[in-house]
């Protein structure tokens, strides 16, 4: 059994295709592993006997996948981590999940997340926090914390999540796995519960870069049901590159960051040396507007969220509360009881930024900063092939450490938000271990690589070569992947 779970998703995929692996036995082994979840990482699992109708896969042809609870799955609970959608069973399936089902990937379960993907620690879930498999007193990151924890904790071979300002990359870094945010438009957003529509993007969380390439290949493509989807021209093939000769990696001077933990800085610098050993070249680039990324992001994302979340009003789906008074009373009672504190905070922030008299000063100005940030990346990519940064300024922090200070939590997204605003692809790969500030066992550190829009293939090729060079093979204790 343990041997089966030790296979990477790609190895299992290829073994099934060759007839060397019994797909049913392999899937059953993962269902059994998932059932042992002690991390609160799953909100729902496909257990034997459960009626899953529309999302059932008759014959598995690839590894089963854990799906962030933000993706609609027909007939199967979908809450987006919110009380307001408790008990909701959507009448249709998101395109991303449908493509996986069509590729023969059974859904193992739905993973816990920060409510409506708003958060960097998974402490904002209405269904309790996800625990980090490396240290259960620490957060797994967020908002795709459940999707990261299941892969790191040996509860799924791979998973999908969503990234709006770092929600795939940061939890991947905190859990010591690979997380890819593709170019905006690479994967359909149809049936993916909307947070900030101009930023939200689906992507894979995996053990290896090759697994990420395989999963991206299954997910990507134009979808008539999402008019902003374009797919990746030429598709995605498995990366095979073993060196970084002739490639230039830019380190942004502005993101060098005084607020970087010393342990993270050490791993980051060691990774730069590894790039040089592999034949790559390190150069300094300038992203002068990226320091304003957090400010622009925390106007644009809440503004879009305040509009998107207007639909939760107790009429068509989800819970209804109140109703003894008039319609407005019902709306207000439902929303006040259904939404958690962080979601209310962002709705308030976004509503304020869009309100009469403030629109130009906040939303208009933030959209111009966004243009500048995208132009900065264009300038950098004229000189280098990739831009590299640490994924997060620290290793996984303790539960409760930042939850009383929303601004401190937001600043944790410092390195990931600029790429989201520019819409470009970025991957986080595990680069080493570092002790947390204040001491304790060593925890994983993520290394972020960003590329120009739709350059996923080059990004995956380089990330794979670097991954092989680094040779990161640490696993959390008690992980079942042997």
């Amino acid at each position, binding site marked *: 059994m343990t041997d089966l779970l030790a296979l990477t998703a790609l190895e299992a995929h290829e073994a099934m295709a060759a007839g060397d692996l019994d797909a049913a036995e392999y899937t059953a082994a993962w269902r059994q592993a998932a059932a042992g979840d002690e991390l609160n990482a799953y909100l729902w699992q496909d257990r034997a006997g459960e009626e899953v109708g529309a999302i059932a896969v008759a014959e598995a042809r690839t590894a089963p996948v854990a799906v962030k609870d933000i993706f609609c799955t027909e007939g199967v609970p979908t809450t987006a981590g919110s009380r307001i959608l408790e008990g909701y069973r959507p009448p249709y399936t998101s395109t991303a999940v449908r493509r996986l089902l069509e590729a023969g990937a059974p859904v193992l379960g739905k993973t816990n997340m920060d409510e409506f993907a708003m958060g960097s620690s998974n402490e904002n879930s209405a269904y309790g926090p996800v625990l980090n498999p490396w240290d259960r007193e620490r957060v797994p990151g967020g908002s795709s914390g459940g999707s990261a924890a299941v892969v790191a904790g040996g509860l799924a071979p791979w998973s999908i999540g969503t990234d709006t300002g770092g929600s795939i990359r940061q939890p991947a870094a905190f859990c010591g796995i690979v997380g890819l945010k593709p170019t905006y438009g690479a994967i359909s957003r149809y049936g993916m519960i909307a947070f900030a529509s101009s930023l939200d993007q689906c992507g894979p969380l995996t053990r290896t870069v090759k697994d990420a390439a395989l999963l991206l290949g299954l997910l990507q493509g134009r979808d008539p049901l999402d008019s902003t989807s374009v797919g990746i021209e030429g598709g995605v093939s498995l990366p095979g590159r073993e060196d970084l000769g002739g490639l230039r990696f830019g380190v942004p001077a502005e993101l060098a960051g005084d607020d970087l933990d010393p342990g993270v800085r050490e791993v980051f610098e060691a990774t730069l040396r590894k790039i040089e050993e592999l034949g790559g070249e390190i150069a300094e680039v300038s992203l002068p507007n990226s320091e304003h990324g957090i400010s622009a992001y925390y106007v644009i994302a809440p503004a879009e969220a305040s509009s998107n979340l207007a639909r939760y009003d*107790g009429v068509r789906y989800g819970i209804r509360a109140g109703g003894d008074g008039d319609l407005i009373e019902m709306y207000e009672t439902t929303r006040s009881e259904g939404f958690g504190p962080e979601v209310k905070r962002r709705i308030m922030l976004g509503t304020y930024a869009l309100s009469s008299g403030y629109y130009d000063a906040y939303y208009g100005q933030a959209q111009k900063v966004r243009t500048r940030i995208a132009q900065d990346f264009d300038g950098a990519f004229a000189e280098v092939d990739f831009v590299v940064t640490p994924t997060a300024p620290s290793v996984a922090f303790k539960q409760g450490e930042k939850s009383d200070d929303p601004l401190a939590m937001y600043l944790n997204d410092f390195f990931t938000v600029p790429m989201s605003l520019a819409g470009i692809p970025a991957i986080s790969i595990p680069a080493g271990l570092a002790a947390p500030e204040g001491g304790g066992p060593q925890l994983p550190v993520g290394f972020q690589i960003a590329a120009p829009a739709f350059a996923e293939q080059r990004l995956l090729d380089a990330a794979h070569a670097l991954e092989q060079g680094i040779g990161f093979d640490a696993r959390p204790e008690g992980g079942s992947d042997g």
Partner: protein
Amino acid sequence: MIDRDQVLHVARLARLRLSDEDVETMVGELSGILEHVDRIGSLDLEGVEPTSHVVALENVLRADVPWQSLPRDAALASAPEPEKGAFRVPSPQAE
């Protein structure tokens, strides 16, 4: 930065009801966040085009053919209070 009255006004716009304690917390937290965000207010961005969407898109046309839509009972299945094939809501008129 943002005061109690503004918080109450915005909460009304957003259809959120806040307790007195929530209002106090929100005044402090939103003010702290806005103070950080306000740094972009001083940037000179005269003449910069705003970005609302990052991918260059062009219109495409398709034939206007009817296809299946969600059956009514499926659309109503998740409603808290469906009635007679419709969504029932409280009266918009206060009694």
